[in-house]
């Protein structure tokens, strides 16, 4: 069905389709619309879920964990300070191999209070064992949320998935949305280690170094296997519903000499910059990285690369730029831009390409920086 919706409403609509048994969430700008919409669905009977209006994000994830370990499908949503507050349980969910799906509406962390888009919140969770995907349109938010459940719950993965969408620029933007009837695209969840009172087990008991090490290695193996599960899920989604995104979405990439790499809505904005540059005769292309974990293997050899990071690791650098430097052995022009909702237009991005100095870092809009 073709409608129009915000990014938040699209996520809620996808959640309604997969019918989690338990949803626990706590409101925070700019995620509120997701939890409000889901509360509406549950109250009106459109969605037959147990909705737990918890008293904090730490409890939201704890409640999802408690529900998930019984074998129930679970969902939560948060943003920025909520995600930071939840951090302990974010680790727990992955360590416990629970296929919880969470939407995170990317927002800066204070102080001072800033409710606008920045990726630092979820990037700070990148080492927790969650799969992380970043979307750029309302349709993609919907499609990816659906896929997230199937990927998380796949027997080769059994890890939680975080679907990230930029605060306001996407969460509150109205765009067209085609909803689907997923049918058996997301099969029922079978959690092999679900609690069974007829076969009592201890979960998360004291664990020595050897066993701990083994469990960590198993998470890494699941992460590696998820690459294929993501690809299969995307393929099946494309066959059924006609849309495909990839681990990184290419735009006029094939013959490009210079490629802009970004994530989320800035990745989409970069496509407009590419058109502009092409009109000027610059052979530009763009690559929008969707999955931060597992991090994609990208062959970027022989091209000039401009990476835009909407995040920063202080005393280190842009996380995306440095991840690509390490993984793809490139020497990019690293641009830090869009923090705290700073406006970055296609014109600005075209400017980054024109002014690029490979091997250096620049903070967009900061005078006299190197």
């Amino acid at each position: 069905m073709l409608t129009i919706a915000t990014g938040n409403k699209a996520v809620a609509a996808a959640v309604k389709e997969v019918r989690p048994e338990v949803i626990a969430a706590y409101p925070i700008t700019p995620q509120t619309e997701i939890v409000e919409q889901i509360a509406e669905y549950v109250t009106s009977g459109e969605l037959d879920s147990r909705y737990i209006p918890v008293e904090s994000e730490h409890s939201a994830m704890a409640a999802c964990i408690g529900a998930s370990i019984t074998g129930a499908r679970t969902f939560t949503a948060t943003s920025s300070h909520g995600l930071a507050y939840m951090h302990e349980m974010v680790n727990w969910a992955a360590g416990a191999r629970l296929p919880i799906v969470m939407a995170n509406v990317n927002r800066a962390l204070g102080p001072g209070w800033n409710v606008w888009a920045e990726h630092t919140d979820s990037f700070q969770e990148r080492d927790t064992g969650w799969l992380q995907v970043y979307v750029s349109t309302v349709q993609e938010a919907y499609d990816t949320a659906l896929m997230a459940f199937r990927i998380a719950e796949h027997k080769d993965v059994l890890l939680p998935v975080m679907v990230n969408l930029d605060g306001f620029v996407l969460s509150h933007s109205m765009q067209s949305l085609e909803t689907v009837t997923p049918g058996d695209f997301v099969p029922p969840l079978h959690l092999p280690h679900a609690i069974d009172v007829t076969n009592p087990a201890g979960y998360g008991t004291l664990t020595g170094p050897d066993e701990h090490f083994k469990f960590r290695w198993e998470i890494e193996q699941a992460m590696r296997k998820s690459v294929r599960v993501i690809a299969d899920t995307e393929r099946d989604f494309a066959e059924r519903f006609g849309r495909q995104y990839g681990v990184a979405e290419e735009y006029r990439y094939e013959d490009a000499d210079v490629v802009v790499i970004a994530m989320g809505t800035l990745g989409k904005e970069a496509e407009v910059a590419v058109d502009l540059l092409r009109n000027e005769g610059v052979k530009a292309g763009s690559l929008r990285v969707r999955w931060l974990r597992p991090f994609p293997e990208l062959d970027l050899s022989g091209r000039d690369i401009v990476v835009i990071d909407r995040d920063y690791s202080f005393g280190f650098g842009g996380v995306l730029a440095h991840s690509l430097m390490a993984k793809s052995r490139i020497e990019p022009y690293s641009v830090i831009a869009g923090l705290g909702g700073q406006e970055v237009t296609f014109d600005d991005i075209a400017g980054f390409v024109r002014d690029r100095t490979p091997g250096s870092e620049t903070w967009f809009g900061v005078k006299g920086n190197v």
Partner: protein
Amino acid sequence: MTEIPKEEYILKCTSACAGCPSSLILRYVLKAAGPDTVLVVPACCTSVIQGIYPNTALNVPVYNVAFAAAAACASGMSEAFRKAGKKTSVIVYAGDGGTVDIGIQALSGAFERETDFLYICYDNEAYGNTGMQRSGSTPVGARTTTTPGGKTHAKKDIDAIVAAHNPSYLATACAAYPQDLFKKVGKALSLRGSKFIHVLAPCPPGWRFSSEMTVEMGKLAVKSGIWILYERESGKVTINGPSKAAMIKPVPLEDYLSGQGRFKGISQKAIDALKSQAEQRAKHLQKEAEGIC
């Protein structure tokens, strides 16, 4: 006398200290709860008592969870079981630190939402797991590793805080009265909604008394009136037999204090504070029991 089942759900291979009240209490909790039970355990001595993976000394599923998260985790679990049409009892088994300090927010939220679960706080009046630091439940005058001169503040009244949430059932119990505890757990689990049982857990290494004295120390706590056994059901308070007797003829509080190393050198001022707190609590509960409140 109530018939206590012979089934054991806590096997004799725990890593508890000798004379451990936590494992003693848990033994009777599980006998009362039976096999269709899941325990949710935050970081505390009980995390250790279970043994080391892949072994477990408990014969019911145990979900160990982060220190502050027990009541919230149990909320999710209870909702999921009920949604699946299962009656499985969800029991949080938490220490005093995990209850009155770091876990109090999740506890309050779960009780406000009338989560269908039983929350048991075994109270050894300090952070046992980490080596006996003070908690909000440590009584005034008690020495812990972070109050080497004796705690300067009163024990937090968690029962009053929980009572303010109007739970389906609230009771206190004591490791030295297992029959009473067994009955209370059974009663709590027969009711829907949020239930709370606060169990005093005299802890030999923490309180510094010898390990064969656990039961004796618990009895002295009740007989001196510093710990009162009672139940609160739909607003009605019932003071249980041993505490009724103690209200008529208490043993001196000094008998209780002098047997414990943690109160060595306690000031008269702290003793007076302990006495007056105990008296006030008794008076208040008596009034409530008589329906005068």
